[in-house]
């Protein structure tokens, strides 16, 4: 029965260690989405047409709409990526909003046909100024 205890102790330590490194490597390794800097940096890994997801903040003043297509830039504070969105964006889409785009590179432009809003875990009530700004 001592063997049983020893195994359980070792296994729990093993699970803890595995989960610890899992969390660490998951944050760098697992590509659910790329930030604009990562997307620029790892450009060679994603040839034109290969799909991935890109997440960033819509740069204020960059949104141009024409015939149901939207052109804008997304940023993570460091790099900016030009985006062409060929779909109807969600209700909350707008400047300074965190978006998650599904698409691929095409001649240096990220072409996306699906946009989702990624909202942060912070919740705020509108301040008087922002209410006016939202209009």
């Amino acid at each position, binding site marked *: 029965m001592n063997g049983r205890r020893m195994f359980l102790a070792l296994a729990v330590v093993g699970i803890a260690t595995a989960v610890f490194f*899992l*969390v660490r490597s*998951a*944050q760098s390794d*697992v590509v*659910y*989405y790329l930030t604009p800097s990562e997307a620029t940096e790892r450009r060679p890994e994603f040839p034109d047409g290969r799909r991935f*997801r890109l997440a960033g903040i819509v740069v204020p003043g960059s949104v141009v709409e024409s015939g149901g297509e939207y052109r804008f830039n997304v940023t993570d504070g460091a790099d900016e990526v030009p985006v062409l969105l060929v779909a109807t*964006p*969600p*209700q*909350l*889409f707008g400047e300074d*909003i965190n978006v*998650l785009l599904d698409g691929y590179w095409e001649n240096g432009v990220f072409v996306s046909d*699906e*946009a*989702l*809003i*990624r*909202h*942060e*875990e*912070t*919740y*705020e*009530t*509108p*301040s008087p100024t*922002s209410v006016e700004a*939202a209009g």
Partner: protein
Amino acid sequence: MTKRILPVLAGLALVAALAVALSSPPDVLQGDFVRILYIHVANAWLAFLAFGVTAAASIGWLVRKKPGYDRVAAASAEIGVLFTAVTLFTGMIWGKPIWGTFWDWGDARMASTALMFFVYLGYLALRRATPDRQARARRSAILGVIAVVQVPLVYFSVVLWRTLHQGLTIRPDSVQMEPAMLVALLVNVGAFSLLYLALLTARVRLARLEEAVEAHERAPAGRAVTAPRLETGQ
């Protein structure tokens, strides 16, 4: 007496919670949609709690072998499945206007919550499939212990993976929420906790009554066998 008080309290609390949720200020980004969050989060939290109670009661049964633990484990799992279903449903309603989609397969939180739902559906199926009460208690207690492994996986999935779902709002070191909204959330969590308690006690009481009916005038098996009413003819 108490069996009347708890449902009434839970009902009043739910009305109050709804009032607070509707009167609380809108979110700067999400506007009025943020009100769905109060119900969504309260249900998700109670689903975790319910499955945690199932696991604890399962361990209790394995150690003590008292039928009371089994009743609590079963009742809590049933309520947990119900709350998980509400969580998934409200999450989808919320996701459409906010994220722009009902469901996203790449999202670890959504996928793992759906899995948790199926794990506990399996738990209930196992209970239904086992007629003998002792065997049912033992088998479901074992599964109740194995299944709870899923719960932390769901909770931490947003930390483990970069997901569409937002991270943890309420963390030990900071609460990233305006006080008025936090109050609304806490009132809802409180109200749904009362609902959970009311449902749990009612379900446990029902289970006890079911068993009493079953046990009513059961004679030893041997007493049901009498001498055959046949004679050998000459």
